[in-house]
């Protein structure tokens, strides 16, 4: 019963923060609401006893991405300025589209009879995860790991080139300085 209440609390937190995150007119607050929503999701992972994922969620999302977003807000936004409001038509239309899609998806999900496996459950323990992550055998995830690392490398290179302002643009470096890594 207690866990049930916790679930509902977490769910409510997540959803309400999410709604606020996409509707607040103050961008900084929106970022904070996003943070709460992400924490709510992490809580749900905990609740589901997927501790590792919950930790990853907090470290990467809360600690990484949100901070990144907040930084970018600082870089690009004059503080205190309210976000512009979207045209009413667009809002209504989007809401309608979203609602219809939501209805369709929910309908299909609820109508669908999910089957569950009868096999023995594998524990989402750190050991298991670690072993599988680096295994090249059946069920191992070494290759995806490599791919992601390449992706991160590429993203890094891309970010550096793009985010370091070229000369001649606002915020750019002094003329003549070449950009190296």
């Amino acid at each position, binding site marked *: 019963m207690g866990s049930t209440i916790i679930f509902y609390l977490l769910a409510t937190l997540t959803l309400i923060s999410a709604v606020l995150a996409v509707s607040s007119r103050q961008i900084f607050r929106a970022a904070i609401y996003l943070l709460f929503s992400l924490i709510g999701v992490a809580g749900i992972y905990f609740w589901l006893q997927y501790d590792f994922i919950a930790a990853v969620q907090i470290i990467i999302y809360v600690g990484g991405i949100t901070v990144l977003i907040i930084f970018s807000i600082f870089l690009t936004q004059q503080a205190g300025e309210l976000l512009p409001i979207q045209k009413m038509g667009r809002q209504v239309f989007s809401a309608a*589209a979203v609602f219809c899609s939501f209805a369709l998806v929910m309908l299909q999900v609820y109508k669908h009879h999910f089957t569950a496996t009868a096999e023995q459950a594998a524990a989402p323990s750190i050991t298991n995860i670690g072993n599988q992550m680096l295994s090249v055998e059946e069920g191992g995830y070494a290759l995806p790991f490599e791919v992601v690392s390449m992706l991160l490398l590429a993203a890094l290179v891309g970010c550096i080139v793009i985010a370091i302002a070229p000369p001649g643009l606002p915020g750019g470096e002094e003329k003549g300085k070449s950009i190296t890594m």
Partner: protein
Amino acid sequence: MKEILLQSQLLQVLPFGKNLALAAALIPLLPLAGFLLLGLFGRKYFKNTSGIIGTLLLLVSTLLALYIAYGYFFQYGNVNGVYQKLVPLKLTWLEFSKGLSIDIGILLDPISAMMLVVVTFISLMVHIYSLAYMKGEERFSTYYAFLGLFTFSMLGLVVASNIFQMYIFWELVGVSSFLLIGYYYDKPSAVAACKKAFIVTRFADLGFLIGILILSFYSGTLDFNTLIATLTSPESNELKSILSASFLGISALTWGLILVFIGGAGKSAMFPLHIWLPDAMEGPTPVSTLIHAATMVVAGVFLVARLFPVFALSAPAALNVVGYVGAVSALFAAVIACTQTDIKRVLAYSTMSQIGYMMFALGVSKYGGEDGLGYTASMFHLFTHAMFKALLFLGAGSVIHFIHSNEMKDMGGLRKYLPITHITFLIACLAIAGVPPFAGFFSKEEILLAAYQHNQTIYWVALITSGLTAFYMFRLYFNIFWSREHHPHGEHHGEGGFAMMMPLVLLAVGAAVSGFVPFGNFVSSDGSKLESPFHLQFSIAPVAIGLVGIFTAMWLYKKQNNRPDKIAASLSGLYKAAYHKFYIDELYLFITKKILFNLIGRPAAWFDKNVVDGLVNATGDGTAVFSEKIKGFQSGKLQQYAIYFLAAVVGLAVVFIYLWK
């Protein structure tokens, strides 16, 4: 080449006399050679000698024609008293299907032998005459080349052994006529005239062509001999089927023959397809002599004569049409001829009228024996007419050569200046008026007799026409040679020398004596001998009426007076109508210009430009407009793209989950 042709069985030569085949083939081929030689190289190499070359070649042709005709009529043509239809040479030119092929061949029978002589002789006369008449012309060699082409085509036409061959040469004759009428191509009137001649005859040829298609389809052949044989033997299946097939209640045979006759009527300038003939006088006068008096215009008569057995035996209705059209044309043209002032036009209408005579002579004739008198008469008249009409035209040529005008009002009193012309012209006039003993008398007599025996209506028309003929011919004669006195101005250059006079004299002899030829011995509807009877009492009426015409003309025109004007005024309506050729030209002009051009041509062009093209352009424009209309989807708005994305996903999901399983 010849070997190959023989091998492939395309070429057939009668076992009977290779020489004959060669000679017969050479008759048309020599003028053709002249055409090619002069046409290709004349301007460069034979600038002055082309006339001589052409004339010499034709002389050879003429001699060969005489040789052939002599041989045919007196040696091998007549077997057991019946003249045979010989085909000494035949080349399969184009085979459509088994049995149905265009053959280029030579058919010798009495009429083609006769025509060979007439055509080559008249052509030779014209060639000689032109040596002087056309001297100094810029395109002298071209002229002779065209003459050669025409002679070739005409000869090919008369010896045709195959109805399609006839059509081929028929067209070639038409085009040579076109070229010769348009000889003075920088004169707009000549250009108009040659176009008119070609188009009108072409229109008529359409009938000929469809007629050929009908006849050939049912008879299964294009060969004249076979065609006539199948369509005249009452028990043949072909005849039965062509008689049973009908359209608008008229049998296919009758249709076919009438259509063929339309072709003939066009070429022979029968009413109402005659409108090109007077205009064709724009050509040089010798050309008019050759083409529009003596040879080409009788092609229609020849065509009907060629198919006469079929007309007479199997489709009398079609023959009736021929008769009435001929009669109407004869009278109609004679009336107009009385009012014209251009001497060549008078002669042209006279030609039309005389050809009408020949036509109705065929029309009233029956096949075989005594009843076939009309056929013989028609051919006889064709023969004599060629002589005296050629003479008339050449005489008129001399006059025009002298006067440099075609108009009667510029002439008068020329008998002193042109004595030979005067005499020969008079002979010709007497001949055409039917005054004995000149040639026209005999042939006309036979025609009138035939008409009298078989169709009284036509007979009376013919009689009236006969009187009118005498009248307008002598009107012409008196206006040229008598009437007012001539006051020549400028230099004086005689009658044009030997080259021009010799043909006149030769033709005058012909016009004078050719009537004495016992024509029925040679030419008759069934090939056997026909004794042409001579009824003295019968010929009183025509001769009398002819004399009345002559004296009326004399009274009116021998001396300058105002009587003609008075009469013209009193008959003003009729006179005006006749003077304007009964407005037939205007009617045609209305039909072509107003109806064809405005009601068909213009809408067709409009339709093409606006509807057909318009549709294509509209497709293009419509696509462009549509493309412009939907450009809003690519709005550049990121979020809109995302919305479309989601909408598409959900939409497709709905479609494939619920609608399109």
